[in-house]
């Protein structure tokens, strides 16, 4: 028998008071919803699309969806960390652009490919760290700080290129946008690696626990001896680095440096995070949920295209899905609060 469930008779006092059963029942539902609810939504969506669109269920289309999901999923991975700290980062789309442009410029200038790639990620990390510094040390609201950096970084991307896209058809790292290994597109491999790293960070490291603690109760985290500022800085830096990686893939995919790259991507990324069950209030959520959230958005877009749904209706459907997801999140919170 599992020793953990063993209640010894020499412990006659009910140590854990019988909680009001409503809490327990609610938490069972919440527990399973937290873990499998979003997968269920994905499965239902896939079944629906498979029934409606005959060419949906094919290996080619699955690879297609995976490839198209990768950039958003990578942005969303970084954003998950920030949102878990009860923050937000609106600048990830602009960071993607600056990092993408920077890496192409480096490559075009003859910098070796690995260094150009590293440069792009570094640009993202630095831009993110700046966000984090403003949020942590000046205690500015993340929404405003990253709204500002979204704008100045976009301006930077334009100014690096004098406003014109720069075509680089023989880009050294074009493979990570268009290449495949054993039939699996390289951007998908990069995505999997990014998720493995972020999963490890959040689930297995001290930093990960601190992220949840800071997002759940910042004052308690401070009093418990957590370096809250450093956690915040790191979270935004990670979001920036992830956006940098997404920028590399974007540039490689279009074989050019595009100052307009990633415009509006932050919204899809936020949607993926929230769909994946991470609470915008911070402290609750899982990185793998975000991946599923991103895939849901990808499957939805792909399916709607296959079904020849006009673009503007696609937008309406996507918007409604996001609102439903957020409503589910707040319902969960209500059921927890109403004890």
């Amino acid at each position, binding site marked *: 028998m599992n*020793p*953990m*469930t*063993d*209640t010894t008779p020499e*412990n006659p*006092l009910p*140590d*854990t*008071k*019988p*909680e*009001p*059963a*409503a*809490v*327990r*029942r609610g*938490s069972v539902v919440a527990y399973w919803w937290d873990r499998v609810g979003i997968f269920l939504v994905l499965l239902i969506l896939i079944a629906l699309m498979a029934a409606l669109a005959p060419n949906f269920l094919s290996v080619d289309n699955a690879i297609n969806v995976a490839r198209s999901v990768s950039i958003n999923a990578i942005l969303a991975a970084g954003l998950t960390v920030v949102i878990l700290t009860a923050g937000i980062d609106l600048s990830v789309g602009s960071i993607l652009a600056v990092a993408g442009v920077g890496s192409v410029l480096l490559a075009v200038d003859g910098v070796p490919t690995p260094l150009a790639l590293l440069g792009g990620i570094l640009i993202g990390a630095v831009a993110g760290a700046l966000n984090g510094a403003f949020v942590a040390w000046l205690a500015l609201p993340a929404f405003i700080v990253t709204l500002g950096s979204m704008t100045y970084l976009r301006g930077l991307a334009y100014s690096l290129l004098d406003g014109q896209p720069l075509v680089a058809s023989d880009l050294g790292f074009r493979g990570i946008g268009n290449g495949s290994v054993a039939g699996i597109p390289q951007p998908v491999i990069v995505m999997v690696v990014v998720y493995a790293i972020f999963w490890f960070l959040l689930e*297995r*490291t*001290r*930093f*990960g*626990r*601190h992220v*949840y*603690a800071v997002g*759940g*109760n910042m*004052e*308690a*985290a*401070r*009093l*418990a*001896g*957590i*370096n809250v500022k450093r956690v915040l800085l790191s979270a935004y830096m990670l979001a920036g680095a992830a956006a940098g990686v997404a920028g590399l893939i974007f540039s490689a995919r279009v074989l050019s440096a595009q100052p307009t790259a990633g415009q509006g991507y932050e919204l899809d990324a936020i949607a993926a995070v929230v769909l994946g069950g991470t609470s915008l209030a911070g*402290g*609750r959520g899982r990185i793998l949920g975000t991946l599923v959230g991103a895939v849901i958005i990808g499957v939805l877009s792909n399916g709607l295209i296959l079904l020849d749904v006009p673009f503007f209706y696609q937008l309406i459907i996507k918007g409604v899905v996001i609102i439903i997801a957020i409503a589910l999140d707040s319902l969960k919170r209500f059921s*927890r609060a109403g004890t």
Partner: protein
Amino acid sequence: MSESTAPLLEVEGISKRFGATLALSNVSFDVRAGEVHALMGENGAGKSTLMKIISGNYQPDTGSIRISGSPVTMASPRDAMAAGVAIIHQELNTIPEMTVAENLATGNEPLRFGMLDRRTMVAQAREKLARVGADIDPNRPIGQLSVGMQQMVEIARAVAENAKVLVLDEPTAALSRTESQQLFELIRSMRSRGMGLVYISHRMEEVWELADRVTVFRDGQLIGTRDMRADGPEQVGPGDIVKMMVGRDIDDLYVRNAHQSGDVRLAVRDLTGPGDIGPVSFDVRGGQVVGMVGLIGAGRTEVARLIYGADRRTGGAVTLDGEPLDVHSPIDGIKAGVGLLPESRKDQALFLDLSVKDNIGMSTLRDHSSAGVVRSGSLLTAVRGVMDQLKVRSNALKLESRALSGGNQQKLVLGRLLLQKPKLLILDEPTRGVDIGAKSEIYRLINEIAGTGAAVLVISSDLPEALGISDELLVMRNGRIVATLDARHADEERVMQHATGVYDDGATTTETAGTAR
């Protein structure tokens, strides 16, 4: 009060089941006009479920509710209000940015030509406040008022809406002594006007002071109702009530520290902080439990936070084991061997979304990780060990801390501190909002920790507790220590006289066992 009239509120045979748990089992209870009826019981005993039923938040599975003799159904809080039942919750229900008048008018704003009629609104507010004898400016934002005054405003609103039965859920939890006294005055005056009051509290002395009848709950059962005005053989004492609450005798709730004090570990000299705190000087020895008492706002919490590094000091020197304790953040405090249990469990200590394990381990993850990666086996062993010590069942490991009772939540925070193996442990209101069973556990733990040679400083607003568990008492007033008393020989009255400044001769008093009184 005539005996023949029907009670204001009667519930009969109420049961309520949640899943497998019977939260209330066949409960009958009534509130008469002109009485204060106290409800007591440990957390989770069924008091809140009953209150949620009579305020229309829950529907009972069986049983009936009658108001002044006629049956009613309360499908919503609005129905309850219409029937004349109002609740003042522990957490205030006010909108801080709005003025007192606006708060009082919410949902029923006076209009003039379709526009808000401010003048009438303020006049109505004055009238409502006057009815409860509250001298509060209706134009002040309510968030600027003390908790006690905000509570008055809420009561004024309930009275204005013609509540006949008013339920007060732990109303003094956040009040100073003066504010509590004002509240008691108001409760008595509402009683004399024929209202029925339900008073939920953990504090025995308040119940003693106010209640006409006491009903005790345990595990969803109504254990009994006692008439507090009865004399002779029917007369009830505090021991009877406690016995009803826990189902057994508690011979000695307080566990007096049994250990010899060793050398001075914490030495505080002329410590000052923002907000006119200090200068304070005192020592805590190893194995000694020092209680810090005083009125709300006397500066006790502030001193604790200055020692821990949670707030910036403006002067003075603190040493721990002779080493200077120069801390600029809680990180420094913990590194130097100081543990702090903060005043507010929910706001300052707990991570409600995280598991019991994460909550206990949070401050000592560094000891259980290599290169930033948590060694989960090693952490688990440590957490299990501390849970045994706390007598918390280990199958609670993965539960969200949100799901635990107040007492068990407090034990988690204590567990986190135990893992830090502090040289100095500062406990700020360690038993606030905690049931009696958990209280005695916490006292036992404090004693145990002192036994390991740690210095323990306990801040408490519960005087019998402070007197019962400490070796020495520091009484604070206006940011300074005004008296150092031997806790074994001090009494509540003496402490209050120092705390309120009856002996205001500007000097610090030291009384030991030998000092005659």
